[in-house]
């Protein structure tokens, strides 16, 4: 290695290993990469090359891995065309031309080979140290060649991408997740990359879907035949059933507790909505959570430890976000009069790391998405283009899905709250809204 190359490699190592100190609202801790021993810091995005993958499905797998890593916003995918990447890489790890990849700006190389038809052997190379840091076999689920098997197969590729991101940055990716949402009176689900859009329910004026923390159920509200809004539970791959505690009145905005054993929803018999809690899987009595005295209390979200709730309430006249203990006591306003000229703050979603609550706030007559840091109660405006509503955090507490009118008809968009980078998730002709991001999908 020449002097210049040595310096370049050193500089690259410093960039990767150095402690970048750019300020960020949330992702402020340095994380140790599991195997690469790269110190990932916010603001740094190590360059990664995904080598061409042999086999009939190799191009698809490579494209998915590149896209998933790119959407994670923690690494920079170095766009190498297949001939260039193939020329730079020999068939075996040790023979890879590391200096050439270093010149391309790569800190790591992802190499996928096939241990068998359904087992991907994934290796990550440390370019600076010119060695393979980690290799692991990943059994792939599903079957991409049959209609019923595509979803599982794609999800297993997403899971590989998430694991790769964990190896490289110390933070698990968010590719193996799904988003549920409402559109045209139905509940739909879509993979985090925007693929595999499928309806989960018939058209029943359904809205406000919420994932069970293990992804095994989706709760949502829908108008029943008598005009009452009911809470329904839909098991993955199964049918929907009405939550038997909600036969009458108005029952909306369900949410599961982090342990999955409690469902909190907003109920009104006549005037005033209050939050109620129930175990949806056992014959237990319903517990009243809020005492709104005729005000409307709705759109609850749990803190990650399950001890607190944030919710929307108009108990002071205008919709504001409140925080209370999980039993409804010690309620206090989070947003009262803050960051809004017309004081309309609603639809909170507590980040999985517990550090922030995202919500929508009316600014100059339009809703915008705000993230409120809970340590210093500092609001940070995340959107400005169009009308933006219904934020829901990804499992990494860094990305959000939200509804936006920026392209015309309301659609779901995904934003990296760190960089502001935004991509459109849904492309429907109909209005799309009330998205909820799942935890990692278990296979």
């Amino acid at each position: 290695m020449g002097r210049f190359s040595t310096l370049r490699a050193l500089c690259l190592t410093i960039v990767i290993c150095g402690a970048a100190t750019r300020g960020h609202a949330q992702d402020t801790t340095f994380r140790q990469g599991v195997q690469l021993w790269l110190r990932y810091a916010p603001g740094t995005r190590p360059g990664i090359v995904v080598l061409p993958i042999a086999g009939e499905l190799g191009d698809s797998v490579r494209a998915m891995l590149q896209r998933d890593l790119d959407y994670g916003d923690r690494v920079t995918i170095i766009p190498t065309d297949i001939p260039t990447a193939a020329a730079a890489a020999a068939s075996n790890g040790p023979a890879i031309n590391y200096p050439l990849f270093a010149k391309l700006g790569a800190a790591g190389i992802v190499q996928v080979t096939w241990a068998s038809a359904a087992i991907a052997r994934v290796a990550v190379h440390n370019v600076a140290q010119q060695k393979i840091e980690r290799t692991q076999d990943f059994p792939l689920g599903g079957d991409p060649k049959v209609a019923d098997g595509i979803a599982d197969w794609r999800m297993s590729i997403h899971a590989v991408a998430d694991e790769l991101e964990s190896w490289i940055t110390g933070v698990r990716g968010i590719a193996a997740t799904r988003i549920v949402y409402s559109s045209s009176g139905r509940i739909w689900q879509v993979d985090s990359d925007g693929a595999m859009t499928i309806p989960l329910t018939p058209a029943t004026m359904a809205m406000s879907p919420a994932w069970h923390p293990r992804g095994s159920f989706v709760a949502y509200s829908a108008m029943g035949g008598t005009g009452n809004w009911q809470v329904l539970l839909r098991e993955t791959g199964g049918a929907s059933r009405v939550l038997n505690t909600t036969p009458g009145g108005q029952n909306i905005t369900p949410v599961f507790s982090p342990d999955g054993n409690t469902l909190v929803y907003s109920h009104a018999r006549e005037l005033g909505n209050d939050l109620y809690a129930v175990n949806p899987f056992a014959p237990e009595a319903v517990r009243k959570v809020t005492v709104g005295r005729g005000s409307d209390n709705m759109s609850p979200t749990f803190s990650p430890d399950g001890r607190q709730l944030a919710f929307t309430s108009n108990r002071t006249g205008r919709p504001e976000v409140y925080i209370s203990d999980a039993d409804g006591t010690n309620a206090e306003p989070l947003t009262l009069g803050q960051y809004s000229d017309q004081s309309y703050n609603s639809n909170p979603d507590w980040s999985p790391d517990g550090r922030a609550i995202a919500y929508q706030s009316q600014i100059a007559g339009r809703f915008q998405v705000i993230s409120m840091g809970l340590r210093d109660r500092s609001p940070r405006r995340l959107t400005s283009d169009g009308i933006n509503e219904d934020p829901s955090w990804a499992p990494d507490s860094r990305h959000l899905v939200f509804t936006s009118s920026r392209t015309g008809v309301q659609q779901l968009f995904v934003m990296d709250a760190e960089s502001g980078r935004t991509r459109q998730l849904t492309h429907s002709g109909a209005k799309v809204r009330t998205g909820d991001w799942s935890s990692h999908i278990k296979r």
Partner: protein
Amino acid sequence: MTSRAQRLLVLGVLVIAVVSACRKRQPEVAPQPVNTTPPETCDQRCRDSIRAADERRRADSIANEERRRKEAADRALAALRATLAEKVFFDYDQSMITDESRAALDRKLPILRANAGLRLRISGHADERGSDEYNIALGQRRAVAVKRYLMDQGIDGGRLDVVSFGEEQPAVQGGTEDAFALNRRAEFEITAGGENLTPPR
């Protein structure tokens, strides 16, 4: 009389008839009762024919009267239903009954009082501003506010169901203030007892 004289007489009669036909029409007068007494020369067949004609005329008259009565009743029923269906409107993010809305509700009261079997479904709606979920609750508040007003005027609450559509069923599409104002409303649907409404006395 000679044949010439006869022709002249016929011609004269025709001229008189034509002139009479061309005269300005006199105002219609009530038709004189038709003398249906059969002439003495009328045989049984002739009398049957006249009787049948009489019966048809009587039946037509009854049917016309019935139709007029039914049309009048339909118009009255439609007016009652229109009064019941008259929407009421609300201010932004409000469920308070305005003076205008109160007048519209007051017009429904006598009909509700005169028809004890009448049931209404009151649906509350919101404009597209505000969160979808908050608007479901806001629609409920509006429907309940209307129900409570009617109950305060003595209408049994058991006859009034409430439902909220939030912003899901706008009456008017569009993002203007006029459209918003028309969408902030409560609508009324007759769910029972609407087939034969008794007009209030």
